[in-house]
């Protein structure tokens, strides 16, 4: 009996060890892929297998990065874009939730707006860029709106359908105590829909980046999107690729942040 138990434990230990080794192996592979990509890039550029003027090279990008960190340029442009993206994300997400609430609150409103929402949802929002810029002027505000408008409609539709799917009987329980519509929303509909709402966060972070970068392409005089366009115009592809890498890096961090926030919220519920 005892012997048997011990061997059970040993089996389990072996299993755990194997999983750990497997994980470590995956990490090595990822690192290898990363290093070989950049080394290959660097070598191809050094030996002119690819045109260094167009494809630049990691070493040049790193030295540009270093330079820009020292002279504060990186921080300056990054800050602008990140703030625009965060603002666009919040306006789009919160605005979408508010619209969803209004639609839930009045069935009539939903019925009337339904075809318009469908069309607006299908429309590629970045195509509205020029109109937004003409209407709101070429500045932060337009760019933030680009970041917001791209996610607001789809958020409102997704969240609205989550509101509608909440089991009516939760509302009946509250009504039996004489709850108002707002109380039903606050106590049952909203908390029951939170998982769906949180899942829109992750999507919206990505969407806001798209909106803001396109907005910066169109009007900005600073920001990472601006640097890309500027680098393209003066044929400085080191600058373009540098901006791209910075964007990829920050976007990944933001995405992870939302992921963590989601996990935290779900644990709290």
């Amino acid at each position: 009996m005892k012997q048997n138990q011990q061997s059970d434990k040993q089996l389990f230990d072996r299993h755990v060890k194997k999983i750990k080794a497997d994980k470590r192996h995956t990490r090595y592979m990822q690192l290898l892929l990363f290093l070989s990509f950049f080394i290959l890039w660097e070598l191809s550029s050094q030996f002119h297998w690819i045109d260094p003027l167009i494809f630049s090279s990691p070493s040049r990008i790193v030295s540009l990065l270093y330079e820009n960190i020292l002279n504060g340029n990186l921080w300056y442009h990054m800050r602008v874009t990140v703030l625009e993206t965060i603002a666009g994300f919040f306006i789009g997400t919160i605005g979408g939730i508010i619209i969803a609430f209004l639609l839930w609150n009045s069935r009539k409103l939903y019925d009337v707006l339904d075809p318009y929402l469908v069309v607006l949802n299908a429309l590629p929002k970045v195509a509205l860029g020029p109109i937004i810029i003409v209407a709101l002027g070429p500045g932060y505000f337009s760019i933030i709106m680009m970041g917001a408008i791209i996610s607001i409609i789809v958020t409102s539709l997704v969240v609205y359908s989550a509101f509608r799917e909440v089991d009516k009987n939760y509302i009946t329980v509250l009504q039996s105590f004489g709850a108002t519509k707002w109380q039903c929303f606050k106590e049952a509909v909203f908390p029951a829909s939170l998982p769906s709402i949180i899942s829109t966060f992750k999507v919206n972070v990505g969407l806001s980046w798209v909106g803001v970068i396109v907005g910066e392409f169109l009007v900005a005089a600073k920001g990472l999107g601006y640097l890309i366009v500027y680098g393209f115009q003066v044929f400085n592809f080191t600058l373009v690729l540098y901006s791209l890498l910075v964007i990829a890096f920050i976007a990944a961090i933001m995405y992870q942040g939302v992921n963590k926030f989601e996990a935290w919220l779900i644990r709290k519920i």
Partner: protein
Amino acid sequence: MSFLQLKQITHYYFNRSSYTKALDNISISVDEGSFISLLGPSGCGKTTLLSIMAGIIHPTFGSVLINDKPLEKNQREIGYMLQQDYLFPWKNIIDNVLIGPKIVGNKQKEMTEKAKQLLVDMGLETVIKSYPNNLSGGMRQRVALARTLITNPSLLLLDEPFSALDFQTKLKLEDFVSALLKRYNKTSILVTHDIGEAIAMSDQIYLMRANPGEIHQLFEVPIEVRDLSPFEARKHIKYQHLFDRIWEELNSLETKSTIG
């Protein structure tokens, strides 16, 4: 004077493509402090009738009177317990129990004490801070009952509160609820499709038939059976007699409806 009166209640459900006549011309009167059962096959309109008494559905025709006054929408006399417990999974047990006072805007502090007391009375003191998902079916049902009782309603509407439970839990909970309601002197209406439960728990039984939902017959439970706890009542000879009568009546309804 009757405490609760239903006068000629008729109710239709309208859909886009069809309609259902769920209730047809139902009149019931209930005395204060009595325990009534609505017994009938599934789909005969029991839940609909209870929702109408709770003021959650407005009947197509007819009226509901409590103490001879029409049922207001915010009538605080009524506690309604749904067919399933519908505890809010994101609230812990005490917050679930406190949802009624919160909606009404009652003093939270006093009510928290009361909620704790109720949960202790129900043998739930160990799970006050737990979440509904961690509780067994019987415990959840008791929490739902506590949530219904905390606003101190004089009329309790119970929609098949024991139907989702295993038999042993159900028998225990019947005894528990019966004793509790007697102690608090509540007027109660129990919906069930279980003949034995109806006899064991109540003073009067309204047998309903379906399509459309109507009152078919009223049975009085013998005094001897009424005074026993549900578990003891089930052993009484008069319980058995009444059971047989209702059983036959239900069967005759079934044959009638298959012929007709």
